[in-house]
């Protein structure tokens, strides 16, 4: 491990849509766009809390979640999820990724506490990305929980008319 750290010259932030941002180490407080370097600052003050200062504009930032090398960042009210990889872990990931194939599972969880109004899929149903799976009622609104992936429903744990807690698993999908 120690050896690895010493030789790290770059880090990659991979977005959930697989866009890759590369930063050289030590991490600079400037980012080059075209031929110009622009200063980027992480700051905090009483009025605005934590924000990033970029091209004379303040953008609110929050760390929503972080686990190991995975970060969910709220930037200007929009959430982005990144995994930060070293050149080595990136290489390892590529190798593992090709071995593991596509038999991955996706868990659809309740984004908030509420009541299941309707379950629209059954075990074995084929679903498309964006297809509604479950109707969850919370805060006077009926919310459609959609499939994040194309795949096949492995398990349905959600039951109509039952109450669920935040992050309860509702549907398990085998990713196509």
């Amino acid at each position, binding site marked *: 491990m120690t050896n690895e750290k010493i030789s*790290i010259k770059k880090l990659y*932030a991979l977005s959930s849509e697989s866009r890759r*941002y590369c930063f050289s180490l030590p991490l600079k407080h400037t*980012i080059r766009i075209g031929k110009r370097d622009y200063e980027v600052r992480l700051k905090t003050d009483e009025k605005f809390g934590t924000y990033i200062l*970029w091209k004379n504009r303040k953008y609110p930032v929050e760390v929503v979640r972080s686990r190991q090398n995975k970060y969910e960042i709220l930037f200007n009210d929009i959430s982005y999820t990144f995994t930060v990889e070293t050149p080595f872990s990136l290489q390892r990931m590529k190798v593992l990724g090709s071995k593991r194939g596509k038999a991955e599972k996706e868990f659809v969880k309740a984004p908030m506490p509420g009541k299941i109004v309707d379950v629209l899929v059954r075990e074995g149903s084929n679903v498309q990305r964006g297809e509604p799976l479950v109707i969850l009622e919370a805060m006077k609104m009926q919310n459609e929980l959609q499939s994040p992936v194309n795949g096949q429903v492995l398990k349905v744990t959600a039951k109509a008319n039952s109450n669920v807690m935040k992050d309860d698993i509702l549907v398990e999908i085998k990713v196509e």
Partner: protein
Amino acid sequence: MITYIKITVKTGFKPGSTRYNMKIKRILIANRGEIAVRIMKTAGRLNIETVAVRTAVEPDAMYLSYADKVYDNTEETSEIPVFLDIEKLIRIAIETKSDAVHPGYGFLAENAYFAQKCTENKIVFIGPSPDSIFKMGNKTIARRIAMASNIPMAMGSEGNIGNEEEAVAIAGKIGYPVIIKAASGGGGRGMRIVRKAEEMDKMFIIASKEAEKAFNDPSVFIEKYIENPKHIEFQILGDTKGNVIHLGERECSIQRKHQKLLEEAPSSALNEKLRAEMGNIAVRIAKAVNYHSSGTVEFLLDSDKNYYFMEMNTRIQVEHTVTEIITGIDLIEQQIRIADGEALKFKQEDIKLNGWAIECRINAEDVQSGFAPDPGKIESLSLPSGANIRIDTGIREGSVIAANFDSMIAKLIVSGSSRKDAIKNCKMALDKVWIKGTKTTLPFFRMLIRHPKFLNGDFTTAFIEKDLDQFFYNSEYEEMLAAWLATKLFTEENLADDSINVDFENGKEMSPWLLNKRINQF
């Protein structure tokens, strides 16, 4: 067992201000949140005392600090929320010697029985008569009244539909698609669109069940479904002397699942002639039920500018603000004056629409997850101010957006001399709203006010579902900057030892709060 907590004491009359000689001296606010604040602000200006109700769900809510008196109901163990408990509210009004009740919107605002109970107990209900509420609240009765007054309507069933066979027969006559609606309905519940006869059985049962659950009344009726309409509504005001006028229209087509997100006044779809025509019809409907107080007549406007009466809302609306801005009339004040027995001080020809106003409903919702509610605590809040900006809100830093109530954080109302000007001001104002702690609808509005179809006024109620491929706006480099931050956090957590040259100097800029939040994750 009555407890008063005196929170603020108003300082009486300002020098030079007029002393209003009203019969109403004290109003019980049978509501919470921003509308409670809104009503109390106007009442204060009219030197009328207000009583607010403190609940266990939000004992420190902002609206309480605007009331002259607070009735403490935090010990109440009843299953029914107090704002829906008619008997309890009447008791509170009597105990607090309130001579009037303002219901706000939602809760009991359109409950004829509540209005009736108030009247029986000699408490002025600030709103229309129980009879008007009942007639307009029942959509089949409202349809019959409108039909008798020759109001243009979508073709539909004469009254409620008894069973699936009857539904199929009527739908066959008027032609598909049709929409099944709850007779006692509103807000999109108990509604189902049916595109072919085979779907009718299933949809009829679903709509009827949903109606029974939501409104305690399974009756439904059928209407021709108007495809891709605009939602245009007219604000009307009527007094108890029989005068009714309209204050122009509001454009409310930007909605998702019948929940309005952005409203504007006036609408770019109407010209003077159409405005006068539809406005007169709105007035005619109101007169047909001897309407007094503030009300809203909703129309659907199709692409050929045919309009159809939909329903009348017998309350103050969330979006009343945009009308107030372009007419200069305080609608809450008018409601109070009308309830007090005053005649309207202006005639139809006195109403002039000036400029343009846009309201954005900033809700605690996650636009990246299909507008799912995102309840939570407001960690920090900074709202813009200025000549073109009005903010109506019932929350402040530290407030909790509870799952029990709606998800509204604030209404951002921006005005301008023209639509273009209002949009420009809105764009700037949206960048000055800072809310931390929950996700909000802000990124949606930032996208919307840049969308060419919105800019051209070329949008219908189907806009969000059909014309959008992304529900939020992020400018160039925003994702990159977020990636930079993730990388920065990673270096601080994993590489902060002597083996690598991490910039400790800049690490000090990290907020203690951010660090705490991160530490808590582990």
